[in-house]
């Protein structure tokens, strides 16, 4: 249905253009006709009038119901009229010793191509070749001009070649149009997918927002219990509250990650930049994670150039980005291994590399792990929603920096976060 409407619109456009060409043709006939003394004035008037009449008829047809209902068929009819009118003109002026009107036939090859693609172009060229041949033979016989078969062969070939070229051109245009349509279709699909994705993020964010009051109450209650102010806890009770506390914090982290992701996707994050020593910031993040690493028997080593690097950063956000990298290393590296956090400063900015002895990341997954909700296949058995790296990278990028993956020497993963350093 839609395709039909598009085709009908296209035909209307073509026919309007061609009708203007007809009026132009009539004008040329009336204006220039008298300057060709070989052409009889009565023939000029006859042909000009014929063109005007056809043009009026087409204008009427374009407005009629018939055209709306059968655009293709009406257009074919108009084209047929064109062919006969032009053939008639070629025939009409053929008594002229300097007969040249057959050149007009080429215009019909073009018009046919536009209307009906290859069939139109080739059909028109064949029709014109036949018209030309018959008229040439007719004028030779009736008016006694020489037959000149080589001229007939030449002109007919030109007609056929023009049809062939026009058919090729139209086919090429068709390919371009198909490509454009495919591209638009694809874009519409991408837009739809993106909208769906946004809906999902929004929904999750909304949900995790609603989690927050209940989380406050549960976490708060556990904290108060653990403070033993309401009463002393047995060892078993302490163990249970500790476990509850750990898990409520995981839930909290997850809901915070979802919200942060939604904020990033909405472009709702405005960095609160302050001048801060990047080295200090990294050391603080490591200190915050030491207890977690100790639980798994891991050691975190900080190694870096002693000089300070002042950067302009949103401290909470940058801590979070670095923290996600360190947290990942703790999560994925084996127990009792060493995690190395190395800071470095050069012309490219300040960078922090988090290097572990974990399973590393397969080559084909190295970009995918930065997508949200994605997890490397070597991480099975560990917990997480797959948001940490995605958030970390977005936050680094908001700071004008980046995060990349590299293989660590001796296996394991190395994530390098780089942020620009202000010129001092």
């Amino acid at each position: 249905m839609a395709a039909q409407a598009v085709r009908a619109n296209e035909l209307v456009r073509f026919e309007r253009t061609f009708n203007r060409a007809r009026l132009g043709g009539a004008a040329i006939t009336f204006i220039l006709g008298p300057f060709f003394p070989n052409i009889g004035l009565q023939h000029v008037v006859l042909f000009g009038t014929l063109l005007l009449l056809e043009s009026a008829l087409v204008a009427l047809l374009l407005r009629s119901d018939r055209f709306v209902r059968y655009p293709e068929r009406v257009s074919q009819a108009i084209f047929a009229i064109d062919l006969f009118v032009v053939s008639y003109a070629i025939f009409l002026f053929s008594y002229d010793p300097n007969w040249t009107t057959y050149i007009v036939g080429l215009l019909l090859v073009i018009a046919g191509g536009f209307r009906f693609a290859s069939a139109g172009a080739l059909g028109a060229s064949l029709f014109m070749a036949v018209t030309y041949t018959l008229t040439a033979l007719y004028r030779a016989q009736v008016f006694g001009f020489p037959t000149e078969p080589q001229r007939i062969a030449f002109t007919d070939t030109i007609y056929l070649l023009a049809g062939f070229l026009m058919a090729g051109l139209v086919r090429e245009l068709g390919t371009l149009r198909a490509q454009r349509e495919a591209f638009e279709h694809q874009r519409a699909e991408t837009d739809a997918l993106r909208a769906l994705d946004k809906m999902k993020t929004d929904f999750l964010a909304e949900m995790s927002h609603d989690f927050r009051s209940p989380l406050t109450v549960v976490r708060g209650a556990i904290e108060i219990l653990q403070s033993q102010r309401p009463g002393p806890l047995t060892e078993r009770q302490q163990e249970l509250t500790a476990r509850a506390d750990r898990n409520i914090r995981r839930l909290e982290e997850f809901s915070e990650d979802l919200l942060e992701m939604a904020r990033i996707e909405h472009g709702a994050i405005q960095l609160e930049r302050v001048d801060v020593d990047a080295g200090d910031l990294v050391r603080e993040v490591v200190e915050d994670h030491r207890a977690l690493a100790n639980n798994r028997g891991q050691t975190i080593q900080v190694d870096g150039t002693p000089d300070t690097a002042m950067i302009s950063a949103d401290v909470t956000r940058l801590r979070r980005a670095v923290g996600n990298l360190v947290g990942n290393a703790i999560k994925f590296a084996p127990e009792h291994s060493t995690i190395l956090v190395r800071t470095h400063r050069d012309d490219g900015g300040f960078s922090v590399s988090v290097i572990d002895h974990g399973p590393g990341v397969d080559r084909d997954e190295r970009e995918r792990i930065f997508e949200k909700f994605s997890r490397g296949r070597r991480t099975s058995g560990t917990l997480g929603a797959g948001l940490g790296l995605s958030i970390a990278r977005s936050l680094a990028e908001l700071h004008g920096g980046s995060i990349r993956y590299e293989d660590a020497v001796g296996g394991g993963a190395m994530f390098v976060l780089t942020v620009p350093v202000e010129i001092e």
Partner: protein
Amino acid sequence: MKVLVVDDEPDVRALVATALGYAAGPAEVVEAGDGDEALAAIRDHKPDIVVLDLALPGRDGFSVLEELRRTSMLPVIVLTARGLEHDKIRGLELGADDYMTKPFSPRELVLRIQTVLRRSAPQDRRPGVLERGDLRIDLAARQVFRGTREIRLTPTEFNLLMELAQRPGEAVSHEALLTKVWGPEYRTEGHYLKVYIGRLRDKIENDPASPRVIQTVRGVGYRLALTKD
């Protein structure tokens, strides 16, 4: 101390009340479930501090804060569930003294309540009067006048102004201001300072868009351009 806790969830109110009950020093807790109740409770119970959830049914927390600030400089800590910069900053701009993002630790909330109360308590520091044009800051009386009209400042606003006034004409760093006015744990929370400087300028400057009294020292902090008596 008397604390008004405003939250539409009874469990959250009960949690805060419990935490305050275990805190050092006697604490009386008044609860309100929505904005209108909150304003009525402030009138009737005269609390020392308000813990105000921003997402309330009906009249929301922002509007309560706005209404409250029209007549009172009562210390307010807002609770936000969304943790959006926008909400925090709007809360501070409307005159909140501090904010906490849910889920918060009750222990930390109690600490913040105590910090805010301590900050708001009158402190007698270096008495004196600072003047510039028709602006007069009476440090001893904690009052600010433009001509004969008094400009009302919240305790935090006054503390910030005072911190700048201690060293008139000198640049005071962001970090120093945050540490002194809010506390060491706020050292990097630049948006508190940004919002409060904006509030002070709105109240004190003739043209807050091009401030002359509280000047920005790029990359460092702020400077109070005043002459001391």
